[in-house]
C-alpha cells in the first residue's frame, strides 16, 4: 500500500498515477480482509477500484497528457509541507504505539468474519438508518446538480 501511495504522487504521467491509486485501493481491501471485514473489502473493490477509478480514468483521458507531463513540477511550499508531514507522522506514531488505549470505551473485539455482512446490515438499517437516508439524499442532490449543470437547456 505504501509503494502504491508513493507511486501515486511521484509519477509524472497522470494515468500511471491513477493505476498506482488502483493498486493502493486493492491493498486497502486486503487490509480490510485482515481486519476480519470481508464485506467491506468486497464493496471496496466493487465501488472504489471498479467504479470510481474508472471515472477518474475517464477524466484523466480528457486531459492533454503530453502537455501535463511537460509541466514544470514545482515545490514552493516545502517548509509548510515538512511541518505538516512531521505532525501527521507524529500522530501516526502516537496511535500506533498507544493503540486502542486512546479510546478505551470504544475498543471492539474482533468479530467472526462470517458475521460481518449481517452485523453491518443490522447496524446500518437499524441504528444508523437516519444517516443512511441522509447520505442517499446527499447523493440525490449531487446527481440532480450534475444533471442541471450538464444540460444544454433547462
Amino acid at each position, binding site marked *: 500500500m505504501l509503494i502504491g501511495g508513493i507511486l501515486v504522487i511521484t509519477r509524472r504521467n497522470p*494515468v500511471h498515477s491513477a493505476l498506482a491509486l488502483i493498486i493502493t485501493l486493492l491493498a486497502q481491501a486486503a487490509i480490510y480482509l485482515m481486519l476480519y471485514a470481508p464485506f467491506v473489502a*468486497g464493496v471496496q473493490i466493487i465501488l472504489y477500484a*471498479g*467504479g470510481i477509478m474508472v471515472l477518474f*480514468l475517464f477524466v484523466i483521458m480528457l486531459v492533454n497528457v503530453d502537455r501535463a507531463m511537460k509541466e514544470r513540477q514545482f515545490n514552493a511550499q516545502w517548509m509548510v509541507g515538512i511541518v505538516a508531514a512531521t505532525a501527521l507522522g507524529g500522530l501516526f506514531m502516537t496511535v500506533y504505539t498507544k493503540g486502542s488505549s486512546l479510546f478505551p470505551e470504544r475498543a471492539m473485539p474482533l468479530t467472526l468474519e462470517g458475521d460481518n455482512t449481517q452485523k453491518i446490515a443490522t447496524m446500518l438499517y437499524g441504528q444508523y438508518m437516519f444517516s443512511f437516508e441522509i447520505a442517499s439524499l446527499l447523493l440525490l442532490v449531487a446527481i440532480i446538480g450534475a444533471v442541471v449543470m450538464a444540460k444544454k437547456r433547462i
Partner: protein
Amino acid sequence: MHEFLQYIESYLTSDKTPGAAGNWVWELIYILLVFVGLSVSVICMNWLERKILAHMQVRLGPMRVGPHGLLQPIADALKLLLKEDIIPAEADALIFWIAPFAVVLAAFTVFVVVPFGPTHAITDMNIGILFMLGVSSLSVLGIVMAGWASNSHYPLIGALRSSAQMVSYEIAMGLAVVSAVLMTSLNESGTGTLSMIGIVQAQLAQGEWFIFKFFPLGLIAFFIFAIAMVAETNRAPFDLAEAESELTAGFHTEYSGFRWSLFFLAEYSAMIAVSSIAVTLWLGGWLRPFPNWLSGTTWDRMFSLFPGVTFLFLAAMCFYNTVRMPKHPLFRIQTIGLAGFGVVLGLIGLILFIPAVSFRVQDVFWFSAKVAAFMYLYIWYRGTFPRYRFDQLMQIGWKVLLPIGLGVLILTASVALLQPMIWHP
C-alpha cells in the same frame, strides 16, 4: 513423506472445499483443474461458435482443418502465437503491456469461488457473490487501459464506450443479484448468505430453483441478469464497442498475436463466469432437475445416467458423420480422425457409467451442462439479433433495466415479508 501422503488423503474424507479445509495441495490441484478446464472450454467455445453461427446462417463453417473443423481452434492458436507482436510507436509501453494482463487476471480470478459441486470449489468465501461481482468489475479497468495505451482514435472511443456500457450494466446485474440473495434468507433463522455454495444449498432447502420462486419475480430477475450479463461481456447484440464494421475491433485494434488472444481468452472466460453466476443464483447450480420432487434412489440412479448418455450420444453423432464422409482417398485421414474422436468420446461415456465415477461427476456435469446451455444462448444471440446503437444501449441499461430491477427488488422483498402471512404453515 508418509505424513505428506496422509495430508493429501485427509482431504478426501472431508466435506468442505479445499480452501475451507485449509488443504493447500488439493487447492493447487483444483486450481490447475479449473485453469485447464477453462482453457479447454475456451477452445471448444471457439469451434462451437464458428460452427453454430455457420449452421444458423445456412453454411458449413470450418470443415477443412480437421474433420468438420475440429482442429480449427488449434490452428487459430498457433497462428496467434506466430504472429508478429507489434507495439505502436507512440503507445505507452507499460500500460500497453499491463492491459491484457489485467483483463485476464480479473477474468480468471473470478473462478476461485465458482461452485461446481458442494465441495468442488477452490474455496468458499462467505462473500462469494460479492467477490465475483467485484473482481469482474476490475476488467473494466483493463479495457480502459487497453484503449488508452494504444494511442489511436478507434481504440480510445471503443474503450470508453465499452467501459461506460460495462459500468452501466453492472448496476442492473447487482440489483438482480440482490433480489436473488434476498430469496436465500427465507429459512427458519431468517439470515441469508452471500456464499455461492450457500445460495445453492438454500435452493435445495427451499425446494425450488430461484428462477421459479415467487413467480414471476424470480423469472424477471433472471431475465434482467441474463440481459445485463450479455451487455457486461460486450457480446452481441451489445457489442458496438468491438464491432468490426463500426470501429475496426474497438479497444483491441492495436493488439496483435498473443496479446489479442489474451483479450479473447478473457472475454470467453468472463462469459463463462457470469453464466456461472446466473446458473448458481437462479438455476440451482449443481442440483439435478427436480432434486426434491422426484427424489429417491431410483430417480437418483436414472438421473445419474445422464453424463454417460450425453457422451455416448456425442460419440454416436461422430460415428454417423464418419459414415457420411466423402469416400475420397484424400479424406481418409479426416475419416480416421473423426472415428478416433468418436471412439474417445464413447470410452469417456462408458467410463461415466461406472457408479463410483458418476457419483463424483454428477454435480460437475449438471453445472457444466447448464453453463453450456448459456453458452449456446450467447451464440444464438450473436447469430440472431442486430446490434444496438450505443445510445439505445445506454438507454436500455439505465431507463429500462434499472427501474425494472428496482421494482423486482422491492416486490421480492415485500412478497418475502408477506409470505408467512399468506401461506400459513
